[in-house]
């Protein structure tokens, strides 16, 4: 079977398990056609209330199974049609996480670094505003839902007004 060399290999994973950046990098490096650059971004759980506060801290991520995968695939497709990307991987964890754990990974492969950097940033900006994930913070007995930030929407909207 003929292989279309313009194909962008897309890997989408929503999982409770942790992931290993080295393995994901190797996988994308071998899948992508002639990659000249691979950019990777990892999001981690911050210590959100600072030191000296009593009680265990955790973050619980809820999502909308089915729609989540569809939304991430759509964001990756848009990035691949906007830049000459040869591959991308999006991994997002769900369930209970504690500070310093990994939450999200985005890896983007392209022939050149500018497309890889832009593609990774584009995917993260839209992941924040279009993928149905919600965070609930817990510190000791106190739990509250994280509220979305206007700055995240501003970051995503700037792509609508620019070509690159």
């Amino acid at each position, binding site marked *: 079977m003929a292989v279309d060399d313009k194909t962008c290999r897309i890997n989408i994973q929503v999982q409770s398990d942790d992931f290993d950046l080295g393995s994901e990098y190797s996988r994308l490096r071998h899948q992508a056609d002639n990659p000249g650059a691979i950019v990777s971004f990892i999001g981690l759980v911050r210590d959100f209330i600072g030191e000296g506060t009593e009680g265990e801290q955790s973050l619980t991520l*809820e999502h909308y199974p089915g*729609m989540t995968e569809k939304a991430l695939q759509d964001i990756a497709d848009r990035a691949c049609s906007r830049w000459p990307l040869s591959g991308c991987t999006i991994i997002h964890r769900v369930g209970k996480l504690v500070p310093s754990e990994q939450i999200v990974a985005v890896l983007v492969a392209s022939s050149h670094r500018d497309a890889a950097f832009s593609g990774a940033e584009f995917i*993260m900006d839209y992941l924040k505003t279009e993928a*149905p994930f919600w965070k609930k913070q817990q510190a000791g007995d106190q739990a509250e839902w994280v509220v979305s930030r206007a700055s995240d929407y501003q970051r995503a909207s700037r792509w609508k007004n620019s070509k690159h």
Partner: protein
Amino acid sequence: MLTVRYFASLREALGCEEENITLEQKDNVTVSDLVGLLSARGEPWDVLQDTGQVLVAVNQSICQRTQPLHGDEEVAFFPPMTGG
């Protein structure tokens, strides 16, 4: 029959995860009409009218409230996303 789902803080505020709703009228019905029907239950359901706090997806795609409904869709209401 519509399957209506609620997520995250909205699910907790409404005390409901999922329900089935049968539309009596099937022509020219939109998401706004469904919101009207649900909001008529009074507090806390009237929060659904707040377009800044409550987003809508029909068949797992984000949409506007002008989106038509035929009566057999999966409709989801949820707060703005906070992933990443």
